[in-house]
């Protein structure tokens, strides 16, 4: 499974090469010359992809090919509630504190529900492993 990380590492490396490929154009003077933001954006994407690749590499190395029992709830109202709350809070940033507070309250309900779902999942997993 470790090969999966190679996709991310290779693609991140490709972005790195393409970032560096801008260097020869630094000799172009004036407005059509190189701008730092062009390096920063592409370089950041390259670095993020390489880091993601390393994380996957480590995770896959740790887990290997062993089977991990997974419990999947058929539905998650808590997730929907959390997102609705966060969305309202975000829109509230443009419309006033009252909407932010309503959104935050709903989001907290959702977050609480997620904690409860997480507990139920762990309980179920322990049952499966026994």
């Amino acid at each position, binding site marked *: *499974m470790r*090969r*999966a*990380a*190679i*996709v*991310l590492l*290779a*693609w991140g490396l*490709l*972005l790195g090469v*393409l970032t560096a*490929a*801008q260097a020869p*154009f630094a000799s*172009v003077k004036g*407005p*059509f*010359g*190189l*701008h730092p*933001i*062009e390096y920063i*954006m*592409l370089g950041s*994407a390259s670095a*993020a*992809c390489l880091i*993601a690749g390393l994380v*996957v590499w480590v*995770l*896959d190395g740790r887990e290997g090919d062993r*089977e*991990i*029992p*997974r*419990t*999947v*709830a*058929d*539905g*998650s*109202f808590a*997730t*929907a509630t*959390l*997102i*609705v709350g966060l*969305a309202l809070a*975000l*829109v509230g*940033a*443009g*419309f006033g504190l009252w909407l932010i507070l309503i959104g935050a309250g709903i989001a907290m309900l959702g977050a609480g529900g*997620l904690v409860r779902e997480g507990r*139920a*999942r762990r309980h*179920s997993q322990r049952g*499966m492993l026994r």
Partner: protein
Amino acid sequence: MNTTTLPVRAAPLRTLASTDHKRIAIAAGAVAFAFFLAGGVLALLMRSQLAADGGVVSQNVYDELFTMHGSTMVYLFMVPVALAAGLYFVPLQVGAAEVAGPRVALAGLWLLVGGGLSMWSGFLTSGGAAAASWWGFDPLSDSLHSPGSGMELWIFGVMMATAGQILWAGCVLATALRRRAPGMTLMRMPVFTWSMLVTCLLTVFAFPALILALALLWAQRHFGGVLTGGLGAVNYQQLFWFYGHPVVYVMFFPFVGMVGEVVATFSGRRFFGYSAFIVALLAFAGLSMTVWAHHMFTMGQVTNKYFSLTSTALVVPAGIEYLDLLGTLWRGRLRFTTAFLFALAFIVQFLIGGLTGIIVASPPLDYGLNMSYFVVAHFHYTLFAGSAFGLFAGVYYWFPKLTGALLSERLGRLHFILIAIGANATFFPMFILGSEGMTRRIARYPVSTGWQTLNVVETVGTGVIALSVLLFIVNVVVSLRSRREAGDDPWGGQTLEWATSSPPPRHNFTRLPPIASYAPLLDLREAREGANA
């Protein structure tokens, strides 16, 4: 994989909170299609305005129409529907029981719904909806030029929809990389799954730039001093287009993958040049991250030579992909189903969009064509005449898997003929108008220009497209009501989704066939034929 289902209590609300990737994807597809219809109505209004030479709506309303049309089609239709296809089929194609992070995928659905409602609720505000184009450039979008709350709602809406898309892409990417069935190595993944993998790479690593740009824009509107002075507004454009060009490929790669599957199945052949296709996809995706500033050639504030070079270099991987598609068709036993017709039209029409892209990738030519209808024609040939045709190829191909019923081929062919006529009548005259100097986003033009005839042709074409979409809806309704049973594998498919029931069970498979290549079901058929011979 050992998977258990936990019961859910409130059955009637199951769809809204389901963590089944198939239900989430179908819900996302339905939401996206609803927004497609709404965006299409806006297009009809715009075309009526231009055919009537400015007698339908005011310039301000027209600004809102093209802003919301573009925003809807990109943020709420094409990208979501592309990722929804991945959400449904990638787990099936790699033999996974579930998508990675089902709750995260569910969150993506709700972010799409919230984002869409936020953007469209701008029409209910006193100042109207956002009117600063789908890219919302500063200073047009600042609090001085776009003071209404419609612009605020647009900013929040786009942020939410984009965040949802990043979440979906993360789920699909993790599924393809870490949830594959035993035997499903990377180089045995179907072409559609690979196309989704590179799509998700682009989404995860380019889309955050848009959220950052919009956060800065919001801060600029409220506090000022963020995008002002020096290169402030230019930097917004840099950030926007760092998202804005990769998103074009997010709206292309999934459909080229769909077309690849359709072409292979209806040619009765193994996909030609598989390895070259995969390498081309990865290179294409990498290069597509480096071409964003070709949208800014005429500003004189970007490295034109570099971006012209990378933009032109895109023809190499694109050429390899086209060669692979044509190679798959070569000497195939072709079956001209509706899905196959849409796939063929995709190949031809996207080529027109792609070739005209080479023209605007050249700075000297772009100086003449920038902001003209030539550019509008170019991107509509890629996104509608290209990608939307690829999407319909996928819909006709996979509808039986989603529902267990076949779509009517007779209505499908009629749908195809009408939409092909409509698309070309609408978008081809735009090349001519653009070359003659008609600029984008104008609600009126002088009669002396002689542009009205071609504008009327385009408007009639848009009407034909609308008719074809209505016919498609009729086809779906009629086919679901009359239910011609599809069976598990009505087309003789080659990939794992055809090895399970239609529609698939909650955890996708009861058993998996042996996987020894990227076309495991074709392997089985060939082995059977070999044994019979």
